[in-house]
C-alpha cells in the first residue's frame, strides 16, 4: 500500500506558527524527549521495505520495553527463566546491534503478569549518565553507562503488597536527582521518588488503590501522574501535589506540547496548567478522540489518537476539531512515534506503517511486515527507527556500520 507523499497548503503556515528549533536528542525515556513520542531527527526511512532493515539482533529474554538511545549505544531490558525472574539490562551498538555488555539481576518481587506483557515492560529512563531500569517485579536497578551497578531497590520487598497480578507497566522518569516511579495497584498503591544517587526514598505518596499502567510525564516543573481516578501533578522534589484534574485513564499517558497538557480522559481533554495552585483550564474536550491503549501524540499542531479499531484520528491541537481520520491496520498496543512529516505505527503483529500526516486525509505511504509480535513503542535515533519485539531488536534505516 504505497502512495506518493503529498503536502497540504497549511503546512508552511503551521511551521511558522509552531517553532521547531529543538536539536535532535538522545531517546532517554518512554516515548522519547518529554514523553512526546516526537523526534527532531531527520533522515529516517520514508519508504518502508525490507531494504531498510539494517539489522535484527536477538535478545536474551522477553520484554516489551522500548530501547533507550544514548549516543551510539542502545540500552534495553528483558526477562528470562522458567519463572521470568532473571532481569536483564543490555547495551548494544546502534551501528550493528552487537552486544557491548549485559548485566543480570534476580527478581525480588512477584513476576506473574498477563501473557501479553511481561516482567520487562517498563521502559528504562536515563539522565545521560546513568540508566534506571524498572521491572514488573518492582525491582529498580541503576547502572552507569558501562554496566557498573550504582544501586538496586526491591520495592515489593519493602512494600509486600505492591504488585499487580496482571503485571506492572508504568515507566520511571528521572528529573534532576529524583527518579519518579508509580507503583499503583488494587492493593498497596503509591508513587515514589528515589534519590538517583543511591536509590533511597526522597518521598513516597499514596495513590488511588486501583491497577494502573500509565507512565509519568514531566512538564513545567511538575510531574503528571495519571490513573483512571484522575490526574495529579506533583512536585518531583517532594511529591507534593500541585494541582489535580478529575478525569483520567489507566493505560495511555498524558502528552505535553506547546504549553498544553493532552489528557486521555473523556476521549481527549486539553488542559492549560494553572500558573499557581488553581484549577487547570479545560480548553477543549473531544470524546471522539479516543486513546484506548495508546497515548496521544501531538506533532506540528495536530493531535493524533488511535482507537481500538485502528482508526487514526487527526485533530487540531488548538481546538480538538477533527482534521481527518484514517483506517490503519491494527490492533495496536504501541504508541505511534513521529519524525518529520511521518508518523510510524507498528501493530501487534509486526506491520510497520508509515503515515504521511500532510496528506489531505492522511495516507499510509509504505509498510513493512516484520512478522513478529510488537507490543512496545518504537524509539527514534539518528536516521533510524528501533523496534523491539518479544525476541528481537530491529533497526530500520541507515545501513550496517553507518
Amino acid at each position, binding site marked *: 500500500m504505497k502512495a506518493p507523499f503529498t503536502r497540504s497548503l497549511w503546512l508552511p503556515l503551521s511551521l511558522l506558527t509552531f517553532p521547531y528549533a529543538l536539536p535532535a536528542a538522545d531517546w532517554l525515556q518512554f516515548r522519547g524527549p518529554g514523553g512526546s513520542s516526537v523526534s527532531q531527527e531527520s533522515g529516517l526511512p520514508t519508504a518502508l521495505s525490507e531494504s531498510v532493515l539494517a539489522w535484527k539482533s536477538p535478545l536474551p529474554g522477553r520484554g516489551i520495553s522500548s530501547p533507550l538511545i544514548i549516543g551510539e549505544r542502545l540500552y534495553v531490558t528483558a526477562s528470562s*527463566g*522458567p*519463572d521470568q525472574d532473571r532481569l536483564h539490562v543490555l547495551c548494544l551498538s546502534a551501528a550493528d546491534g552487537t552486544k557491548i*555488555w*549485559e*548485566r*543480570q*539481576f*534476580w527478581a*525480588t518481587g*512477584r513476576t*506473574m503478569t*498477563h501473557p501479553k506483557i511481561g516482567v520487562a515492560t517498563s521502559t528504562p529512563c536515563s539522565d545521560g549518565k546513568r540508566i534506571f531500569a524498572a521491572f514488573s517485579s518492582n525491582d529498580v*536497578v541503576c547502572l552507569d553507562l558501562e*554496566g*557498573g*551497578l*550504582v*544501586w*538496586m*531497590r*526491591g520495592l515489593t*520487598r*519493602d512494600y*509486600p*503488597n505492591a504488585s*499487580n*497480578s*496482571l503485571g506492572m507497566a508504568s515507566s520511571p522518569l528521572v528529573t534532576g536527582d529524583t527518579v519518579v516511579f508509580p507503583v499503583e*495497584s*488494587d*492493593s498497596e498503591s503509591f508513587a515514589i521518588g*528515589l*534519590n538517583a*544517587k*543511591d*536509590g*533511597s*526514598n526522597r518521598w513516597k505518596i499514596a495513590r488511588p*488503590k486501583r*491497577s494502573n499502567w500509565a507512565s509519568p510525564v514531566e512538564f513545567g516543573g511538575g510531574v503528571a501522574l495519571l490513573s483512571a481516578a484522575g490526574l495529579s501533578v506533583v512536585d518531583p522534589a517532594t511529591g507534593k501535589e500541585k494541582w489535580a484534574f478529575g478525569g483520567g485513564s489507566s493505560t495511555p499517558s498524558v502528552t505535553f506540547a506547546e504549553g498544553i497538557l493532552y489528557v486521555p480522559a473523556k476521549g481527549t481533554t486539553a488542559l492549560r496548567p494553572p500558573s499557581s495552585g488553581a484549577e487547570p483550564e479545560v480548553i477543549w474536550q473531544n470524546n471522539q478522540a479516543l486513546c484506548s491503549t495508546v497515548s496521544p501524540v501531538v506533532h506540528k499542531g495536530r493531535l493524533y489518537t488511535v482507537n481500538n479499531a485502528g482508526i487514526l484520528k487527526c485533530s487540531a491541537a488548538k481546538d480538538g476539531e477533527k482534521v481527518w481520520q484514517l483506517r490503519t491496520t491494527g490492533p495496536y498496543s504501541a504508541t505511534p512515534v513521529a519524525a518529520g512529516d511521518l508518523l510510524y505505527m507498528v501493530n501487534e503483529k509486526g506491520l510497520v506503517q508509515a503515515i504521511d500526516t500532510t496528506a489531505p486525509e492522511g495516507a499510509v505511504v509504505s509498510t513493512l511486515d516484520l512478522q513478529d509480535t510488537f507490543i512496545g513503542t518504537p524509539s527514534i535515533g539518528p536516521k533510524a527507527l528501533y523496534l523491539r519485539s518479544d525476541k528481537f531488536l530491529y533497526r530500520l534505516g541507515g545501513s550496517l556500520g553507518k
Partner: protein
Amino acid sequence: MKLRLPLFAAFFLAGSIFGAQDAEIDLVLKIGPEGAHNAEATQAVAMLAKAPAEQLPRLLFAMNPANEIAANYLRSAVDAVVDRTLAAKGKLPVSEIRAFLLNTGNNPRARRLAYEILVRVVPAEAAQLMAGFANDPSVELRYDAVDLLIQAAAKQKEAKENDAALKAYQTALNAARDQKQIEKIAGELRALGTAVDLPRHFGFLTHWRVIGPFDNTALAGFDVVYPPEKEFVPAAEYDGKAGKVRWMEVATGEEYGKLDLNPPLGELKGVTGYASTVFNSPIEGPAELRLGCKNGWKIWFNGDFVFGRDEYHRGARIDQYRLPVTLKMGANTILLKVCQNEDVQDWTREWEFQLRVCDATGTAILATDRPPTPPAEPKAKSKAPSAKK
C-alpha cells in the same frame, strides 16, 4: 560427588581460604530495607567489580548469607569480573567455581551463576554436570536437568520403547517441580496408559471445612473480623449474609487443587467465606504455603496471621504467593479467608483458591494422614466440589 555444608560453615571456609571477609563485602551485606546502606554498598561494589578473577569464589560464597538485594550487588561484581577477565583472555579459577557449584548447601541462585560461568569457559564439562542436577535445590539447575530427562524419554517413546519411556517419564515427573514441565510429563504418562495424581505430586490440600457467606459489600468485609477468625468450633452456627451458616466438609479432585467456593457457599457477590484445615506435618522446620487466588484473601497459620491481599480478579496461578512458615511436627492449622467482590462480569464469577505445602524448591510436603485424592469430576462440573453439611 555433591557435598552439603551448612551455610555458615561454607562461608567460614571461604573466609579461611581467601582471608578475612573484607570491608567491601561487609558493606554490601549491610544493605537493608528501603535502600538502607545503599550509598556505602555502591562504593563497595565498584571496588569489588575491579577484583582479580581469583576473588570470584569469595564473591560467590559471600552470597550465602546475603539478602536478595545484597546478593544482586555481589552478582553484578561477579559478572563484571568474569566479563573483564574473559575479554582480556585471562583465566578463571575453574576448580573453585566447580566446587562451589557442587556444594548443594550454597545459595541456589549463586550456584546457578557458577554453573553459567563454567558454561562460558568449560562448556563440555558443564554439559556433563547438568545430568546430575535433576534433584537439585536450585530451581533452574533442576529445570534444565529435567528437560534432559524429558528429551531422553521422548527419544525412547519415538523408538517405541514404551516400557523404557514410561519409566523415564516417571523419573522425570519425580524430579520435576515446574508446572509446565509437569503438565507435559503427565500428558505423556497418561498417553502411555498411566494414571498421574497431580494434586498429590504438587501437594495441594484437597480436604477442607468451609463456612459462609459473610458480607463483603463495598469490600468492607475484608477487614471485618467474623467469628471464624476468632475461634474454630466445628458445630458452631453464625449469622451470615443470607441466613445462618455453619461449617461444611468439602473436597476437591481438581487437577491443580482448586477449591470452588460457589457451590458450597452459594453463588453470591459481595461475600466472604472461610476455609480451614489441619495439616499433620511429618517434619518440623521451614516450609512454604503456596497460594493461588484471584479473590481478596487473608491467611492464618497455627493461629498467627501470615499475610493478606485485597486484589480482586487480576488473575491467579499456581504458586502465585509464596508464604514462609515454620511447621510443627504433627497438627498445624490453616485458616483462609476468601473474599468475593461485587463486579458482575462473567469473568468475576470465580471464587476459589488452591493451596499447597512445600519446601523452597517446590517439593511437596505431604501430610502424614493425607487422604486419597478425590476423583476429578467431569470438566463441566469440575468447579463443583462435593459438599456435605
